[in-house]
């Protein structure tokens, strides 16, 4: 993954190996993400896409290899990385006891910008009802409305953002992603659906699978 552009590298991964429940998911993973660049992580179910994202945001520390944020290696770089991170995981981070408007305000939006963001994801009219009473798809859109707020953090890490979105929602999201990249932001996401985004690069985790050893029970781990 060596895209030669003038834009600086923000996130770099060198020889990364992740492990879950004592099982190696992938190893020797190398890629770098530029400012204004977008990468989609591919891989079959259980290949470790979510684990990779969670490793990159520092939620799990069971990895070997190097992760650098603006040339600062983890865990030193983690803090400054989190200052400019917007992460939306499987669980959206939308409080059920709050309204969509209050949820967005919690994430630092002004009322006007929050209303506009909700409007763009077709949530107009729902801003005042509690998220508990909204559907799963609507809650998903409230979570993603964070992407439509002004002064968005420059690194977006999104885990399956397109699930439970309708066609119009996907189109709006794609447009906003392109907008974000144009402004010099970076994007890292997993998705099972194809994404229409200019300049999108791919990292396929199945290229970094751990080689099967002779034994049926799996090989000997490096760190046992």
């Amino acid at each position, binding site marked *: 993954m060596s895209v030669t552009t003038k834009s600086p590298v923000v996130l770099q991964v060198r020889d990364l190996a992740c492990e879950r*429940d*004592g099982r190696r998911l992938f190893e020797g993973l190398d890629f770098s993400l530029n400012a204004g660049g977008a990468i989609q992580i591919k891989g079959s179910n259980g290949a470790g896409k979510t684990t990779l994202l969670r490793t990159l945001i520092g939620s799990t*520390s*069971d990895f*070997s290899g190097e992760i650098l944020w603006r040339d600062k290696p983890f865990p030193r770089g983690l803090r400054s990385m989190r200052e400019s991170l917007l992460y939306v995981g499987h669980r959206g981070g939308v409080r059920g006891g709050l309204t969509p408007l209050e949820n967005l305000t919690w994430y630092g939006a002004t009322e006007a910008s929050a209303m506009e963001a909700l409007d763009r994801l077709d949530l107009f009219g729902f801003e005042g009802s509690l998220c508990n009473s909204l559907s799963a798809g609507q809650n998903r859109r409230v979570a993603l409305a964070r992407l439509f707020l002004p002064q968005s953090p420059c690194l977006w890490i999104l885990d399956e953002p397109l699930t439970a979105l309708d066609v119009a929602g996907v189109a709006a999201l794609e447009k906003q992603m392109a907008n974000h990249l144009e402004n010099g932001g970076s994007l890292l996401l997993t998705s099972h659906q194809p994404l229409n985004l200019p300049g999108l690069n791919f990292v396929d985790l199945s290229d970094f699978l751990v080689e099967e050893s002779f*034994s049926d*029970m*799996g*090989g*000997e*781990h490096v*760190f*046992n």
Partner: protein
Amino acid sequence: MAWQWFHRLGSPRWFYQKTSGWLPWLALASVILLVTGSVWGLGFAPEDAKQGNSYRIIFIHVPAAFLALAGYYIMAISGAIGLIWKMKLSFAVMRAAAPIGAVLTFISLFTGAVWGKPTWGTYWVWDARITSMLILLFLYIGVMALSHAVSREQVADKASALLALVGTVNIPIIYKSVDWWFTLHQPATIRLTESSSIDPSMFYPLLVMISGFYCTYAWTLLTHTRALILRREMKTQWVQQELAGEK
């Protein structure tokens, strides 16, 4: 990287192979010390003036209580090492230490209760030491229950290590408060092990028993840790060879 080096130092395989040589010696020492201490304590140590022969329970009650408490610290410290340096081995030690410590706590509670009958005329008295031991048992059970309730082994390890650490901070506070509570409610009873100046003829067999319990503890902890390592490293080749070799 530094933690990779620690990983190798705490390699379960290294530990497993290193300790197999120690086991017979530890077992031998345990048996010799326990048998000597028991015979000495039961038959040759003089009778206690106040409590008669029932005091001979001291020779197991005190060592068990000693190790029950020490075992909690061993569990918590190995848990802490695991949390800080991400050592698989020390988590295994922690998980193995929990049931052993719980059994020892139970032994000390049981012997304390049985000893209470001839001394106080009843099996259970809310004596400060016994109450503290009961709470220690609950602490052990809490750690064990938590580690069994969490399905992912790595998460279970970390969670129970943290709980063990929290318990360690609390143990001195709990002991002090129970002590204070007891003096408040029952100012004057015979304490089971009130031994400001224990006679050497009773102290030496006790010492032998304590060292015997220490050896037994070490041996048991090692064998339990080794069993746990085999289970956890089941997918590796060396464990499969190890298990296939002795059939």
